[in-house]
């Protein structure tokens, strides 16, 4: 009896030791890999003081770059949210042949290099591209202009809303929706009153991811935009150019601004989500 309890105690101590070891290794990894670079950029961006920050933001090309990034983000978020919800509903609710394939295709933009996405757009809409005659005849400039920049960003941001919403919908089941239908609610009413409140947090998180991705996109936008200073230069493309011209300080400041925006947005939503689940639970 005594022997058993001692060995149990030894086991428990060993388990505690293991946990402490795992925890330290994990914390060290996260600190070196994720936190150190974040600290680094905060330090180097603000090293020269706020005067330099103000100076950077007074430059017209910096302002234009942020303005362009904001437009692309807003359009991308609206489109990916709208279509994301529809595709998620289809994937979660309907059964059809080839559903696996569709689900894999939806994930494709996550796996394909943004650079390749940019190339695809150039091949379709650029000189000699399949769709070029159509838009040229109507005088619409697609490549080296805003339309193609928005298009590639949407393509790349498609999966986020879908991937966040589908599991929630599957978990939810259809009972509540069917109850609403039985009680005479229309499809739209059911969606607004029953489905939407249920998927709210997953949807918001997906939207935030989609927004973060759209302001950070660089590879695809670089290829389709032509990166014309003050015209088709987004915030990330500005960072690329600033680095090339040895204006690291400005690059750091713009980079930190972009990162801060996304981080605050995601942390805000995660906090709200946690509070909501605590209230519910």
């Amino acid at each position, binding site marked *: 009896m005594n022997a058993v309890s001692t*060995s149990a105690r030894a086991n428990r101590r060993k388990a505690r030791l293991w946990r402490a070891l*795992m925890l330290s290794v994990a914390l060290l990894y996260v600190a070196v890999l994720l936190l150190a*670079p974040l600290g*680094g950029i905060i330090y180097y961006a603000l090293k020269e003081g706020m005067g330099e920050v103000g100076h950077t933001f007074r430059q017209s090309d910096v302002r234009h770059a942020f303005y362009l990034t904001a437009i692309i983000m807003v359009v991308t978020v609206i489109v990916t949210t709208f279509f994301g919800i529809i595709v998620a509903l289809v994937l979660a609710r309907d059964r059809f042949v080839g559903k696996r394939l569709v689900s894999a295709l939806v994930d494709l933009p996550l796996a394909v290099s943004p650079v390749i996405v940019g190339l695809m757009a150039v091949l379709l809409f*650029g000189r000699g591209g399949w769709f070029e005659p159509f838009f040229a005849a109507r005088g619409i400039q697609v490549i080296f202009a805003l339309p193609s920049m928005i298009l590639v960003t949407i393509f790349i941001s498609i999966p986020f809303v879908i991937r966040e919403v589908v599991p929630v919908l599957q978990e939810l089941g259809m009972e509540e929706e069917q109850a609403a239908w039985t009680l005479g609610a229309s499809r739209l009413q059911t969606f607004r009153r029953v489905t939407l409140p249920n998927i709210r947090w997953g949807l918001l998180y997906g939207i935030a991811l989609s927004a973060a991705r759209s302001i950070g996109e660089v590879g695809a936008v670089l290829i389709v935009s032509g990166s014309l200073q003050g015209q088709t230069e987004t915030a990330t493309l500005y960072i690329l150019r600033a680095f090339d011209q040895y204006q690291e300080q400005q690059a750091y400041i713009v980079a930190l601004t972009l*990162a801060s925006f996304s981080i605050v947005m995601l942390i805000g939503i995660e906090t709200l989500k946690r509070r909501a689940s605590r209230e519910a639970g």
Partner: protein
Amino acid sequence: MFILLPVAAVLQSGFGNGLGNLQDALNSFGAQNAIKLTLMMAFLTAIINGVFGTLLAYIFVRVPFPGRDLLSTVVDLPFAVPTLVAGVMLVALYGPHSTVGGWLERHGIHIIFAPLGILLALLFVTLPLVVRSVQPVLIELDTAEEEAARVLGAGGLTTFRKVVFPALRPAITAGALLAFARSLGEFGAIVFVSGNIPNKTLTAPVLITQLLNPTTFGAVAGPGEAAAVSSLLFLFSFVLVLITERVSSHSLQRASEL
């Protein structure tokens, strides 16, 4: 349609004139080495983050400690930070003019403009992919089996190896494959860090942008060669996605059976 049509265009442009473009690109523009380097870096990233991602997921689910929510938020950081900014961060921290970078440089450790920097950038960008792939499966996993193993006298490591790991294997594989695929295509995080030295630190996605930029190679290269390299890279990604889809649906099934 929105997704399939562009794919067809790249394949047509890359292989429209037979395999000539691909051969050209592979032989004359360092594409062979670029693809080799890209695969190598992606492979290392998948392995390393496979291990640490699983460890983090395990901690999030099974090891309660104060500040777990905070750590969880920090791990999601790479989802928020633009990849280009991740690259800028690494250059700021490890660049030769910085305190840390200068110190490492003097001790013979080269990060910026070296493969190690590329690896760090990829590890940064892909860590949450593995964690968020393993975590849900681990949550579903019943602790009864683990407790049984422990009561029967198995140590922590044995329990993990014999009980937890087999149940998690599909999820870990799926997460690591996702990290691999993501690493193959990464451009933003790498472009500053690598220095893009041909045959040394030039990765395939960066090479594609160079092939498309008339100032790098002039008129000898163009969309055709870029499309050829892209097609090859795309093929890898597509196969990876299909495998991941297979593995992850399998892992969910397993989790629901357990």
